[in-house]
């Protein structure tokens, strides 16, 4: 038996199930990160001595990572455009670029973390670093998750593209929504932790 509404829209929701599912998931993600942002505000307004993020963290590295993540967002949406144009090669190229950029983000983050550890700046050092590692660590896990899903599409997507092209296109759209959300979270994390 085939799974219903993977391609065609449902009459009651006017969207296919995958799209409604990912938006519901993203709504729960908003609340997850929202709770941590709320904790950040709580800790910051209650603190008598809050360090300047720019004096502890590496702004050029984080700016570079912001550029990398925004670029990965456009390559992700272009991979979907490739499928809409029925051009699998274009999809593969842009999806590979997205994965590469996501990996670069993680490598930069690895260097950032190790530099902090070398200077004995751990989550237990102070409240600022505790919330910094919690928020960026959770974000890193999300990037990892996105890379696994995108990697799966790149390596094993061809078969579905040949048999059910619209279903595969929808899968890429849904994966793209998740990836853009991860980019969106970073857009707020960057100024909040590094610049303010």
């Amino acid at each position: 038996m085939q799974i219903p509404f993977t391609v065609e829209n449902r009459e009651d929701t006017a969207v296919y199930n995958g799209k409604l599912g990912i938006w519901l998931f993203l709504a729960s993600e908003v609340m997850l990160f929202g709770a941590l942002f709320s904790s950040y505000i709580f800790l910051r307004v209650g603190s008598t001595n809050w360090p300047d993020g720019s004096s502890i963290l590496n702004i050029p590295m984080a700016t570079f990572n912001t550029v990398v993540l925004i670029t990965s967002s456009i390559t992700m949406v272009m991979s979907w455009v490739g499928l809409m144009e029925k051009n699998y090669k274009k999809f593969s190229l842009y999806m590979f670029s997205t994965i590469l950029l996501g990996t670069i983000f993680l490598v930069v983050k690895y260097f950032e973390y190790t530099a902090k550890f070398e200077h004995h700046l751990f989550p237990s050092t102070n409240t600022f670093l505790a919330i910094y590692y919690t928020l960026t660590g959770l974000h890193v896990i999300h990037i990892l998750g996105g890379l696994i899903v995108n990697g799966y599409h790149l390596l094993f997507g061809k078969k579905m593209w040949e048999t059910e092209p619209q279903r595969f296109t929808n899968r890429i759209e849904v994966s793209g929504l998740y990836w853009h959300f991860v980019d969106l979270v970073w857009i707020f994390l960057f100024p909040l932790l590094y610049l303010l």
Partner: protein
Amino acid sequence: MSAHDLSKEVKKYILVFVGLMILTFVTVYVSSLEVGIITGIIIAMAIAATKGTLVASFFMHLLHEKKIIFWLLIFTAIFLTGLLLLPILVKMNGVRY
């Protein structure tokens, strides 16, 4: 979506990408100015909100999305606002913690 519509969308994506890049460097530049912490937070969050709106509207296709998705997001926004206001309300109430 026709090939013409798709090429129009791609042009928009490129414009949004350029806009996001410019706003990223504006954020970094503004943070180096001596404007005070409150003004700094307002400017930085306003730029971040603009960038977020651009990503959601164009890359996430929210501009062309169906009503049910908007309803879902409206409810999420209401709960998120409550969540973010909690620590501020606690502070305004003068509760010691």
